[in-house]
């Protein structure tokens, strides 16, 4: 019980501190790291307090301290799984999927015929739920990482496509008229006007896709895999009631995902510095 009270008091105190920090020092570099860190710490303490205070069975939800112990004890497994799932499965699938989506968006955009014909069908095909496709792709591409990459490709394709199509349409009339007076070729208009104007939208899609890529790669492993990989480990460990290991894997996923997202957001900042949503932050 005292654990519970401590956790709640800590939570309230940290929230107050955070609000103050954000108001007073929100624009300073250190605060930008401290505030989310404090927020995260608060969640962890609250979690620890709830688990210990309410005596929740570790088979249902382990406490952060148990997870940390398990994490430290299984770094080898975690590293192996990370390489299998994230580096081989998610990353290659992400690159192929996003690349394909951008290319298809441009193709569709180029031809009104294809646009009218492909977009509805593309919508349809891309809306095939991942969980249905995963077993099929495992069947087609085998048990190793290739099938995981294929699942990721399918999964990231739609969000990137939708955003890219919206982005390619995002130029304003004046910008287009200017190109018309130069009688710019299609490709010139594309590279010099429409692609830059599409970037804020594209990055929207790319950011969403980072998290989808991880999810896709991990989940695909539920449908068949070699005996390594994060999805494999998670499902096996759940079966063995080794929940601390499950959450260690999830921690790895969350860290990798946040890093991945952060990287894409950083590139976005560099590429779309001119967009009001980026300029507002200076």
């Amino acid at each position: 019980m005292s654990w519970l009270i401590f956790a709640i008091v800590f939570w309230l105190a940290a929230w107050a501190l955070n609000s103050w920090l954000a108001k007073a020092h929100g624009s300073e570099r250190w605060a930008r790291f401290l505030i989310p860190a404090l927020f995260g710490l608060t969640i962890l303490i609250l979690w620890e307090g709830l688990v210990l205070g309410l005596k929740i069975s570790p088979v249902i939800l382990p406490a952060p301290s148990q997870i940390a112990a398990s994490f430290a004890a299984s770094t080898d497994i975690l590293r192996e799984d990370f390489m299998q799932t994230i580096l081989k499965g998610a990353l290659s699938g992400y690159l192929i999927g996003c690349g394909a989506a951008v290319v298809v968006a441009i193709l569709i955009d180029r031809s009104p015929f294809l646009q009218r014909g492909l977009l509805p069908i593309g919508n349809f095909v891309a809306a095939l739920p991942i969980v249905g496709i995963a077993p099929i792709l495992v069947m087609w591409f085998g048990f190793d990482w290739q099938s995981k990459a294929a699942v990721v490709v399918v999964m990231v394709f739609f969000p990137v496509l939708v955003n890219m199509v919206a982005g390619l349409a995002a130029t304003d009339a004046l910008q287009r008229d200017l190109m018309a007076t130069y009688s710019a070729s299609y490709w010139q208009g594309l590279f010099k006007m429409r692609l830059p104007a599409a970037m804020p939208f594209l990055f929207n899609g790319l950011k969403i896709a980072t998290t989808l890529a991880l999810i896709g790669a991990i989940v695909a492993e539920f449908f068949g895999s070699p005996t390594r990989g994060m999805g494999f480990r998670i499902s096996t460990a759940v079966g063995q009631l080794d929940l601390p290991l499950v959450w260690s894997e999830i921690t790895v996923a969350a860290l990798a995902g946040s890093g991945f997202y952060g990287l894409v957001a950083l590139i976005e900042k560099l590429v779309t510095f001119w967009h009001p949503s980026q300029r507002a932050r200076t």
Partner: protein
Amino acid sequence: MKMVAPVLTVLAAIILLWYGATVWLNSQWTYDQAARAGQEVSFSEVVVDTMNQKRPVLPAPHQVAEGLWQGVFGQKFTSKRSLVFHGWITLSATLAGFALGTGLGILLAVGITHSRAMDLSVMPWAIASQTIPILAIAPMVIVVLASLGITGLLPKAIIAAYLSFFPVLVGMVKGLRAPDHMQLDLLKTYNASQGATFWKLRLPSSMPYLFASLKVGVAASLVGTIVAELPAGATRGLGARLLSGSYYGQTVQIWSALFAAAALAAILVVVVGIIEQITLKRMGMVR
């Protein structure tokens, strides 16, 4: 109407490719079987056989069409063998989850654009939350919720919401920050409240971003629902159909359920698109 010809053309091309792939992917089995039986098969026999296997690697379009037809019209809509019945179960959870997720996403986005503390603390964790493979812990979530007495539509909707809130959040944050300086400055000179700035400037200018995200969001919501249906005692819904199809290797059933789900998603995306068109038109944003 302008759409019919292109769509049909593309459709025809896809079906053609599909038949080709059917032969290519299924022929291995035909050859293996023949070899096991010690027979020779001609190519035309192979083609015929690949189109009508019981457990094809890739079912032929007509097999899927028949499966769909059977699933939709083969029995009463209320029958548990009807795709309409399962589709409805999935749809209701999808919509509930989508509503929850969109609401949450918009709410968080509003908070993030208005409170620096929220911007700094929530966004990184919202991102982290999405990197948790919810699909991996969905079964645990369902178990935990069930032990709290929450069953039925809600657990599925919660998982659907979990997946759909993020695209909405990301798009909405971008959209709410899209107004340019002059547009914001104008309201500043009026000393407009945050509320007025939101309703009269930020919200209208976020619309294109919002709708792009909503389309991704409904699709994600449907995926969430299906994921939640897989292990949730796997009883009803398209997810359960998919699973039992998988479990018994009934490829045609998997593909029928898959197409039903995709059709559902496509319809939802189209509906969002129509609402988008109407809204943007009324806002004078499409010319």
